[in-house]
């Protein structure tokens, strides 16, 4: 990590100019895009990479010996190296391309889970998980007769760590935990969670869908066994996910999807499987989007992750302060360590009405349960309004949000 005083501030206007969509109008007003936790916008370099691939060297990878196939393969594999560096994985074989975080988690549930979880075993998740880190484990538990345990969340939106420690036992086979909550912004103490789990012999999966764009990720330092994230939340294209797994675990796991690419030799008597990471990449992958993803990572690296994190934290603090001035507004999730996500509710006003009236002013926020219904049940609310900030957002846009909210509240009261 770079010391704070050595971080050069980012040039937001320069960054904004790289994202063509930010120049558009919505409902006759300049777009204010504050739904970055759902998906981030894409810089021109990513968009160009997609076009360049299809217009310049579209080919199926790994098999062909012709020039196009070699160029496409090299570009595809270059992304794997970029991802390895981005999360500091020990080797490129431990980086598996999937369709997204959801598929990454399901891959672990269907392979490692089916091989290692037995009747009476326990899987620990938390009350702030996204549905995609709940449902795969429920399916597995139902099939195996295993038990799903849930770490509760306190008033501030933080995990109750003492309860977590008390849930751990020799029955615990897996802890699958979100790094940063999409609905609350809470940054969970994953290092502490992983250390405690490892002491009981449990394996840990970290859902990094929200964290990878905001935090410095080092899977070796974190010591997680699996790490999952999505390219589209990292300024990259949709349809690309990452699953990192420790090599020995990935090697011992049964295969997931069967087909081309993941095999070594096929006969009707016996099929042998390919080496890592291809063992888990059956069929023709999402070549274009994987290739373009590297340009998103390059963009983040060139801007500087520490500088981005510092700026996003300033946006979070400014936004939290400005929103707190609105009468009747309650911020849901006031954890001490938060990423740039602000979820809130308003007295006597339905989140959807706010969402519609903000959209009418060109402001994009998310309203609803954020695919975390059990968490909403904890707070006894149907949903929240969520503003989530990215490196291209400005203080001026937060002012626009506050003005937009005041106007919407006035219209509704």
């Amino acid at each position, binding site marked *: 990590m770079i010391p704070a005083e050595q971080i050069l501030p980012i040039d937001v206007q320069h960054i904004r100019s790289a994202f063509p969509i930010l120049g558009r109008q919505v*409902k006759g007003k300049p777009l204010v895009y504050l739904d970055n936790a759902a998906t981030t916008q894409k810089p021109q370099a990513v968009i160009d990479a997609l076009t360049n691939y299809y217009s310049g060297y579209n080919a199926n990878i790994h098999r062909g010996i012709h020039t196009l196939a070699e160029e496409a393969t090299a570009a595809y594999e270059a992304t794997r190296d970029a991802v390895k560096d981005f999360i500091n994985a020990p080797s490129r074989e431990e980086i598996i391309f999937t369709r997204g975080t959801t598929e990454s988690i399901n891959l672990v549930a269907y392979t490692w889970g089916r091989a290692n979880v037995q009747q009476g075993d326990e899987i620990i998740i938390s009350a702030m998980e996204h549905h995609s880190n709940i449902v795969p484990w429920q399916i597995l538990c139902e099939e195996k007769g295993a038990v799903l345990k849930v770490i509760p969340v306190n008033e501030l939106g933080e995990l109750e760590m003492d309860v977590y420690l008390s849930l751990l036992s020799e029955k615990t086979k897996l802890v699958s935990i979100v790094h940063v909550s999409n609905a609350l912004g809470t940054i969970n103490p994953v290092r502490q969670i992983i250390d405690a789990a490892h002491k009981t012999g449990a394996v840990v999966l970290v859902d990094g869908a929200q964290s990878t764009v905001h935090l410095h990720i080092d899977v070796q330092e974190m010591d997680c066994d699996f790490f999952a994230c999505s390219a589209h939340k990292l300024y990259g294209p949709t349809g690309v996910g990452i699953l990192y797994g420790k090599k020995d675990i990935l090697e011992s796991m049964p295969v997931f999807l069967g087909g081309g690419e993941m095999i070594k030799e096929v006969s009707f008597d016996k099929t042998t499987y390919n080496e890592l990471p291809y063992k888990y990449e059956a069929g023709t992958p999402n070549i274009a989007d994987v290739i373009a993803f590297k340009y998103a990572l390059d963009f983040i690296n060139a801007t500087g992750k520490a500088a981005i994190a510092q700026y996003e934290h300033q946006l979070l603090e400014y936004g939290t302060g400005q929103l707190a001035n609105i009468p009747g507004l309650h911020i849901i999730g006031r954890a001490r360590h938060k990423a740039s996500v602000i979820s809130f509710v308003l007295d006597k*006003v*339905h989140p*959807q*009405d706010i969402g*519609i*009236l903000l*959209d*009418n002013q060109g402001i994009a926020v998310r*309203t*609803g349960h954020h695919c975390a219904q059990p968490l909403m049940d904890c707070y006894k609310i*149907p*949903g929240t309004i969520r503003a989530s900030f990215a490196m291209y957002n400005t203080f001026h846009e937060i002012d626009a949000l506050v003005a937009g909210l005041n106007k919407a509240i006035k*219209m*509704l009261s």
Partner: protein
Amino acid sequence: MTDNSTIAGTEQEIVDEFSLFDSWDDKYEYIIDLGKRLPELAAEHKTDENRVRGCQSTVWLIANDREGKIFYEADSDSTIVKGLISMLIRVLSGHTADEIIEAKLDFIDRIGMRAHLAQTRSNGLVAMVKQMKNYALAYKLKNEVNDGYRSTETKSN
């Protein structure tokens, strides 16, 4: 003058009213006002059974028939949705099952609402319309079955 005795007439009336507004702010203020003025549904009707599926907000809808005509009552925890329901009720309530089943309801498009609402929210509106039409269809089928019984009884007498 428009004819509000027919569904199409009331639809035209709403389209005419909306044409007076210059901006979407004004349109929304009008819809919000309609939402606030729609009487609240009694608590006993706010059941799971009466919930309309497919909406981001919670919508309850009930229907009653009097003298061959169907009357709707509805509620929502969202004021804007309530305003939209209020317009649907104004258009459809008090008409026969056949009239409701055949209603085009193109006023939603003509006032620009369908295009203006994001697809997910627009789907909620579609779900509401579908539910209202389903009620009409159910009444129609029920009455046809009843009519069938009556005619059988007449014969056996």
